[in-house]
């Protein structure tokens, strides 16, 4: 038994090291001087930190505009997912059977199952026809469409935990469905809404395929900027690592906040807690 415990610890510790090392390596590269980056053996701790890379990143043309785009699109699409998603998820949670449930669930799984590119080819064509190419609003809508099923599954698991008795007593008082939903259900499900909101934000924040196809200069998002470093002839790892860090750090901070819901959220749609 002792051997097994030691083995487990060893396994978990080395896996943790492997999980964190790339993150550490990006952050440390982002605060290294060129000389310290382009050297062997690699410098892990023995360098003097500098913010040069961040300085050159932040002074990049349009950096802040792109950062703002990312925030705006993430926020907008998350809001849509929460409003539409909570309504639909409530119906799913409370009515096991209704007309149209099957097809809707099928559509939701299809969104999850289909590679984004299959939908984005026609979306690209349609939106350039309607003058919606490179529009932030179009991006918000597409992000929301792609993430809505995920939001519904996740919210559903939260709504199902609310005892039905609470609603029954409200019904006796004559509250309408919608009133009951907004005044009673949503406040109780608030933690679930927050958790879902954060998860959908993560998905939107990380999204790359949609903006790389649908965004030009006006609606460009952070992942597209990060990716654009790679196409430059000279690979300048410092600012690149700074850009990657700027994308990654908000996520790491968020995950610390949402530890409680992490497991439920990450496995939603696949298993039920």
């Amino acid at each position, binding site marked *: 038994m002792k051997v*097994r415990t030691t083995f*487990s*610890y060893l*396994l*978990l*510790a080395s896996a*943790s090291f*492997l*999980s964190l090392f*790339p*993150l550490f*390596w*990006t952050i440390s590269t982002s605060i290294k001087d060129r000389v310290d980056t382009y050297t*062997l*053996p*690699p410098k892990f701790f023995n360098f003097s930190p500098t913010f040069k890379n961040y300085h050159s990143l932040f002074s990049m043309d349009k950096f802040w505009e792109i950062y703002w785009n990312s925030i705006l699109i993430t926020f907008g699409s998350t809001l849509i997912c929460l*409003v539409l998603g909570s309504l*639909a998820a409530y119906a*799913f949670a*409370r009515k096991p059977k209704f007309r*149209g*449930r099957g097809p*809707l669930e099928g559509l939701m*799984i*299809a969104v999850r199952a289909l*590679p*984004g*590119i*299959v939908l984005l*080819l*026609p979306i*690209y*064509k*349609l939106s350039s026809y309607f003058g919606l190419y490179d529009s932030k609003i179009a991006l918000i809508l*597409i992000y929301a*469409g*792609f993430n809505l*099923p995920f939001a519904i599954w996740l919210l559903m698991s939260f709504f199902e935990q609310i005892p039905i008795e609470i609603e029954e007593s409200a*019904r*006796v*008082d*004559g509250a309408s*469905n919608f009133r009951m939903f907004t005044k009673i259900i949503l406040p109780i499900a608030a933690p679930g809404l927050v958790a879902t909101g954060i998860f959908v934000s993560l998905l939107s*924040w*990380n999204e*790359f395929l949609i903006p790389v196809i649908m965004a030009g200069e006006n609606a460009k998002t*952070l992942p597209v900027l*990060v*990716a654009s*470093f790679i196409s430059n002839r000279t690979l300048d790892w410092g600012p690149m*690592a700074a850009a*990657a*860090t700027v994308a990654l750090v908000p*996520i*790491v901070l968020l995950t610390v906040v949402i530890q409680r819901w992490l*497991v439920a959220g*990450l*496995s939603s749609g696949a*298993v*039920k807690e």
Partner: protein
Amino acid sequence: MVTKLSGPRATSKRSKGKNLRPVAHFTVPTWIFLFLTILIPFIYGIYISFLNINLASFLPASFIGFDNYLNVLRAPETWSTFQITLVITVFGLLVQIPLGIILALALHENLRGTKIFRSILITPMLLTPVAVGLTYRFMFDTDLGVLNWMLGLLNIEKVNWLGSQTSALFAIIIVDSWQSIPFVMLLVLAALTAISPSLYEAARVDGASSSQIFRNLTLPLITPTLLVITMIKIMDFLKLFDTLFILTRGGPGNATTTLGLWTYKTGFIFLELSRAAALGVIVAIISLPVYFLWRKASKGVR
């Protein structure tokens, strides 16, 4: 108050049925939204796969029937990229599922510090794939990469990781595994937690060894979850794009181009939108069986 109580109570039975029904209408906004953002594009995609739209040409598109499909099915790239997708999928699954199970088993022992380990191990799956790809690209660098440096310590010669097909596929599978193993681990852990401890007790009383318990008790019980994971992973491999795009762009040549990336290239690099749409329909057809299996399986797990 008292008079009111008797009134609504009489109607409450009736209004209960009436009240419950409108809840289904709460899905209407979702219907409309998914109709506009998903269903219409999908149908339109099928439609343009029968036209000859080229994004570089200004000629009006015309209907050409199944020509795009025939061209796509005749093109060697379609089959070679399909093969590459298959190779990545099979080897990816062979790496990710066993490692995910092992980590889940280690977490399931509920040792001290398990929560912290779990939080750390989950982190990779949350990170921006594009940024992850960049990080790994730096680590895989032939001259400056940490990986080659470490191999150098073991007196192994420098490898040009992203320069040849085999090593580049290897690198892609490593990066995808780094981000995907946590997902496998979490789902298996959820399945393990659902197994009643009394089953283990009984097995131990009967004198079963640890490996016997795993093979005859744990494994059969987590098999449904493993099937769900396999299906989701197959879909994810079909979707694989971000890290691939950053690491190799499908190169050298098309040596690491998957079917999904090939569809992207056809549409947005070679600008053959209609042909890409035909490829897209084929990709959708390939994912169809997995889709139905998932529908069935997710009902089972639920």
